């Protein structure tokens, strides 16, 4: 049996770094960013041949803080700490792992809340929409900056998996292995619909001020809170919500009012509050749009995903989770089919889990054993 991945080994205390880019980046929308910062963290050591690098792409609300702690007293480690570290499925004793906050983010990389050097004010509504393609282009510049010609692997879940796909299509010579987890080749109408309800919650919040709320020293807290509550419902499965919360009442009986009564209400409101105080509303809007826009078949819909993935040269591990209905196993199978049509090396696993979309972040012995087994065969 594989060692279970819930070991306590950690990369320890890590510090984010900032890379400054002064070459203008023309975005897919046509807008131009004259320069930008990317905040990133690294774990492990880049070898002399610089061929043991792994890029971790984050999802909607993620960031560069993938593993370890910022201070010894931190309560929570990075968001994928159960996956990445010494002796973990992605072993930092062997690999040099990079986490980066995407452009448009709110954790240090240039985004809507950053000061626009041209005006001295926060970008706010003037920050351009960025796409998955733009993120990959900016991540490639970070790779150049770190002297990495080709990644041993690029991995990500959900929106992060879309970035991995885009790397394989757009810069196929720069990645040897792609781990696409709980992802999809493009969103369905239902998925875009959820995103739009979330956006509407933010856009119609009176404190949004057209995106320029920074100048008003406020932020659309209510909208962001609602957006996150909605998101949370879709990231969990009916089963896990049922088993975790059921119809349990906090006070044991009905109060015939609108305050928190059911445990699920308490949970969602807590999650919403926590998120609304720590995340930027413009970043949330922008990230959901990047999700909606991503579609490798956009320019040639009739040719389909098989044609879109033709440039890919990497080997793939595609993973989905049985109760994930936001990024369902069927969507991962579409990716697998297109890779099979192109005769790529690909393995696909469907992990039995009750945790819905969130499962990709959870420690699961079989899931972690698979990633470990795949990574052990990644050459450096």
């Amino acid at each position: 049996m594989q060692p279970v991945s819930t070991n306590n080994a950690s990369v320890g205390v890590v510090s984010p770094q900032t890379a400054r880019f002064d070459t203008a980046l023309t975005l897919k929308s046509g807008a131009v960013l004259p320069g930008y910062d990317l905040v990133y963290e690294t774990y492990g050591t880049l070898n002399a041949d610089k061929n043991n690098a792994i890029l971790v792409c984050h999802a909607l609300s993620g960031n560069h803080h993938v593993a370890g702690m910022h201070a010894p007293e931190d309560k929570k480690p990075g968001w994928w700490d159960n996956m990445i570290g010494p002796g973990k499925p992605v072993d930092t004793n062997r690999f040099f792992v990079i986490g980066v906050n995407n452009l448009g983010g709110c954790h240090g990389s240039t985004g809507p809340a950053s000061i626009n050097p041209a005006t001295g004010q926060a970008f706010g509504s003037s920050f351009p929409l960025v796409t998955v393609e733009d993120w990959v282009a900016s991540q490639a510049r970070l790779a150049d900056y770190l002297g990495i010609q080709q990644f041993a692997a690029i991995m990500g879940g959900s929106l992060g998996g879309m970035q991995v796909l885009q790397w394989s299509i757009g810069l196929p010579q720069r990645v040897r292995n792609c781990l696409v987890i709980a992802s999809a080749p493009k969103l369905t109408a239902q998925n875009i619909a959820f995103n739009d309800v979330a956006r509407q919650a933010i856009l119609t919040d009176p404190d949004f001020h057209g995106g320029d709320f920074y100048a008003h020293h406020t932020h659309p807290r209510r909208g962001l809170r609602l957006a996150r509550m909605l998101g949370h419902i879709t990231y969990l499965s009916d089963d896990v919500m049922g088993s975790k919360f059921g119809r349990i009442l906090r006070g044991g009986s009905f109060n015939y009012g609108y305050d928190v009564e059911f445990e699920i209400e308490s949970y969602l409101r807590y999650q919403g509050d926590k998120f609304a105080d720590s995340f930027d509303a413009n970043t949330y809007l922008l990230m959901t749009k990047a999700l909606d826009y991503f579609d490798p078949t956009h320019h040639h819909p009739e040719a389909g995903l098989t044609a879109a993935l033709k440039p890919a040269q990497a080997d793939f591990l595609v993973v989905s989770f049985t109760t994930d209905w936001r990024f369902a196993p069927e969507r991962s199978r579409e990716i697998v089919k297109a890779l099979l049509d192109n005769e790529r090396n690909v393995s696909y696993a469907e992990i039995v889990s009750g945790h819905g979309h969130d499962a990709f972040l959870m420690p699961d012995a079989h899931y972690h054993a698979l990633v470990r087994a795949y990574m052990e065969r990644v050459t450096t």
Partner: protein
Amino acid sequence: MRHDFQIIADWVKPSAKVLDLGCGDGNLLKYLQNSRQVRGYGVELADGNVLACVQNGVNVIQRDLEAGLAEFASDSFDYVILSQTLQAMHHTEAILREMLRVGREGIVTFPNFGYWKNRMQVLRGNMPVSADIPYQWYNTPNVHLCTMHDFEALCDRLDIHISERIVMTAGKPVSFLRNLTGSLAVYRFERKK
């Protein structure tokens, strides 16, 4: 190594594209990759086997064969192999059709229920248990055991042309009264022209 692996390897042309259905831990594909330089994929349902395939460096797609081979394009493989899995499938006809939709040639191995030792056990009043059918009636995954005659009759009905068959007992080929003396049947077949 399982006795049918060598026969399959002898049949598979070098550098061929191979799909192994119910590939288990991936050992056959690994053997074919090393001995025949094939490009291959396995299909497997059990979690432990999927993991073993990844550990073995074999491409594996987790899927239930009973639901067909939807991800695999027509005529995309030189060989589609179903080794010692046919007897455990519910949709026997469907998988044989799918094999020849996806591949140019099919290779099937199964325990021959007509083997005399199996017949003797039935005559004595018991369900057969042997090296090639190593289960008790109450814990067997096998649902569609057949004799060579039965299999050939089905192939005829499905317009499947049997191009070669090798029958083995205890790892040695047999050639006399094969449906009686053979314990493990290995067939290769294609669509009728």
